[in-house]
């Protein structure tokens, strides 16, 4: 069953504007939060077991407590650079409930004692940018931002920043670089952003959904939030389901929910009586699950990690048996080739190499050793770079090749897809 916590009022258009939002209980939690000490809030968030919703799933309260205890100015950044293929939840959250995000951010900013925050929205989301910018203006007018918010003595300024089309800016240090007006190239860690981030000042970067969830944790308390989800994966999460299902879209479900139910109940199963072939459970960088695995999987951090995949950003891409896996591999690897920032050698050269290998396979020029080479190159890209993009390209490559090796080998041998419906014909691509 869907559990609508964050998305409770999403179908009400008035929720978007300040008036409607306030009517539906908006900014009440902020008042409540100002009644608490910042440390208390951090403790509650820690107790709630909230984990980052952007991809890595790092415990949020723990991240906040990494900030050095000093009076240096610190920043709170909201990561709304939703670039992971298959993910579209943040866009919906910003377009339908900008104030929910702002409220969550002010609470979080109060908790970490930051006086300035930015929402970094990916460039393609022009609608989200306009909505959020408008909402911020409303919030300033309503006294929820600016000096001495609600008489609490807490000052906070918020601004939006638009990216300009780079997947890598979804990586937190890449986003910081981009916000600093540089190329969005990830920075070396250490130092971590919590110590030296935006403009070399302590910085907390959280995903849209994480920050919005903070509001509900403070409103209902940690225990109430924990009612949903599992022991280690608490709360609800939005999943963006796309691909070959009847009803694709965003679904808020408690963590630990069976993937099978998500696909076959909530999303109405597969189209045209097709058979399930594979599922990518957490955005294109998550290793793929075979149909068998998908039937057993539950949507929480542990189960998917155990299956060798990951929850990631919660983008569930459902693949039915009409698709050629080699063809999809080409799409995914082309994406990472296109998006590698070009800093670290293994990723810069490796993503290009992988793309070229799989291209020669899909155009019928593959050699049998190419299948093995894909795996070998991918393995040697893992864990060798500054950020995780290299791994993000390597993991799907390894999982596709190991789990669907027969399809790859068939393609190399026969020069055509094993699937009846052919994949896209790259050799005849219309330029």
């Amino acid at each position, binding site marked *: 069953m869907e559990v609508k916590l964050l998305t409770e009022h999403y179908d009400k258009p008035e929720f978007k504007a300040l008036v409607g939002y306030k009517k539906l209980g908006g900014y009440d939690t902020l008042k409540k939060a100002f009644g608490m000490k910042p440390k208390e809030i951090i403790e509650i968030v820690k107790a709630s077991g909230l984990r980052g919703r952007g991809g890595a799933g790092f415990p949020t309260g723990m991240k906040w407590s990494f900030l050095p205890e000093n009076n240096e100015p610190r920043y709170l950044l909201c990561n709304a650079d939703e670039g992971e293929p298959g993910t579209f939840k943040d866009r919906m959250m910003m377009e339908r409930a900008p104030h929910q995000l702002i409220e969550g951010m002010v609470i979080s900013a109060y908790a970490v004692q930051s006086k300035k925050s930015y929402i970094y929205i990916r460039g393609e989301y022009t609608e989200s940018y306009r909505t959020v910018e408008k909402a911020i203006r409303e919030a300033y007018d309503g006294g929820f931002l600016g000096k001495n918010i609600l008489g609490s003595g807490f000052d906070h300024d918020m601004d939006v920043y638009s990216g300009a089309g*780079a997947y890598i800016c979804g990586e937190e240090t890449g986003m910081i670089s981009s916000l600093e007006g540089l*190329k969005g190239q990830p920075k*070396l860690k*250490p130092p971590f952003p919590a110590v030296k981030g935006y403009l070399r000042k302590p910085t907390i970067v959280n995903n849209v959904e994480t920050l919005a969830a903070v509001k509900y944790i403070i409103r209902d308390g940690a225990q109430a939030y924990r009612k949903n989800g599992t022991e280690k994966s608490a709360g609800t999460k939005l999943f963006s389901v796309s691909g070959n299902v009847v009803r694709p879209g965003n679904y808020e479900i408690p963590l630990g929910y069976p993937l099978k139910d998500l696909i076959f109940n909530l999303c109405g199963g597969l189209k045209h009586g097709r058979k399930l072939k594979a599922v990518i459970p957490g955005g294109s960088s998550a290793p793929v699950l075979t149909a068998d695995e998908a039937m057993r999987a539950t949507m929480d951090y542990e189960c998917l990690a155990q299956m060798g995949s990951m929850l990631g950003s919660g983008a569930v891409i459902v693949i039915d048996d009409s698709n050629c896996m080699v063809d999809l591999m080409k799409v995914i690897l082309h994406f990472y*080739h*296109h*998006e*590698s*920032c*070009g*800093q*670290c*050698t*293994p990723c*810069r*050269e*490796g*993503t*290009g*190499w992988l793309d*070229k*290998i799989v*291209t*020669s396979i899909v155009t019928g020029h593959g*050699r049998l*050793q*190419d299948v093995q*080479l894909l795996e*070998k190159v991918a393995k*040697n890209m893992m*864990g*060798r*770079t*500054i950020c995780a993009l290299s791994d993000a390209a390597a993991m799907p490559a390894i999982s596709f090749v190991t789990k669907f090796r027969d399809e790859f080998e068939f393609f190399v041998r026969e020069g055509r897809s094993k699937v009846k419906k052919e994949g896209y014909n790259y050799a005849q691509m219309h330029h």
Partner: protein
Amino acid sequence: MPKCTINGKSIEVKPGTTIIQAFKEAGEEIAHYCWHPALSVAGVCRLCMVQIEGQPKLQIACNTVVADNMVITNKSEPVKDAVRWGMDFHLINHPLDCPICDQAGECGLQEQYMRYGQYDPEMAEPKQKKHKVIDLGPTVVLDSERCILCSRCVRFTEEVTKTNELGIFNRGDRSEIGTFHNKPLNNNYSYNTIDICPVGALTSKDFRFRQRVWYLKEARSICTGCSTGCNVNVYFNEEGTWRVKPVQNDKVNGYWMCDKGRDVYKFTNLPVRLTSGKTGSKDNWNLLEAGALAKDVGATIRAAARSGADKIALVITGQYSNEDYDALFQFFSVGLGVQNIYHWINNPEDMNGFDGLLFRGDRNPNTKGLVARLEKYGVKTKWLDLEDKIKAHDLTHIVIAGPENHSVFPDLETKLRLFDQVPNVVWLSAGKSVAVDGLTAVTTQIPMKTFIEKDGTYTNYAGLEQKVKRGTTIVAGALTLEEAVHLMSGEELDMNMRPLPPKYLKTNFLVHKGGPL
């Protein structure tokens, strides 16, 4: 002081030392491209992988600070494998045009591939095509295909010169180093980007295709282009000198040198050198062996001095070594009692100029040494006195220890016209000059050796004395100023003036190399 173990060697390092620095201190080899001691850490080549005991993932040595009791190795199989693949990733899109690449022979890719490479490349796909032979201004040629995007040059223009000409454009494997629409890279330190380029992506226009590096020998010397005295290696072979490159010396120049200093090799080469002694005047020159000529002219001067040392003037430039000056003063000031000693300052206006990094307005290597000696011998003359004396025809002889590097003496011709008014001119210089050949006075030209052909000490702007050893001989017939002065004073040259390195004295190398006879 954290202690750590590097490949089994335990060493103690300063707090805050990174692992790669510790490796260098321990004398252990480690592969790397992007790390440079004088630039910020980029951490992008991913070659300096090390394994730290207790950490599951390999770490890069350049961005990891040594902690106490760290046990670090780069000899383990996972590290070797990572480096092998790292090298392969560097090379899959590299054009491998070593035969036409100027860097071949001193190339980071060649050297490190031989040491750490995979030797069995698996890349079968077409390589990424990028721009080749891009003209980046007066000094640098860029080849994007050879570039491994280590970003050293970009960081150099950002952090050292702060001119920001270079950038990395585009992304992924389409990334290319370059300037904004090939605007020229024309700061005074641009050659340094070529030095720090570990591959042949940036090559020097001045040196390009003129020699292969393996034909060249190198000699440690100093740059005589200005009073900073940057430490350099001069590259030479039997045909002459070909280029200079900076050598690290934290007291003087760090790792860099300026573009103007790169020209110092040019005045040492045969085409611009005075190769034999000359005597006569305009259009009527007799060539003579330098030593004989020095003896002759010495006798004349000594005779003239006996009839009045005030008729003789000595003009000195700041281009010679302290030893040269000592001999000169010993002979003229002490021996002959000449009082008319003048310091020829080539560019009085910007004598104290400084560009904030290395380059100084005083374009002589040893002004400080000369000034110290002028003081020591109590010389307090002004240049204008000389001009007055010449105009009053008070002088019969003028001896000029002229410039080695004529290009930094813009006033050469004006000054020569002045000297020409003295009946007898003795011109000591390394370079040949049309202006000197046009003198109408009775002139003796004695060829001098350049800084690379002699031993000597130079005092830089800060008073630091730097000893320089002879590197090579280009004009065998030339003399050092010290030798010329000895001959002029009537003495003979003896072997002690060009002492052999002690190792040759101790062991006859024929015996040494071949065993007992």
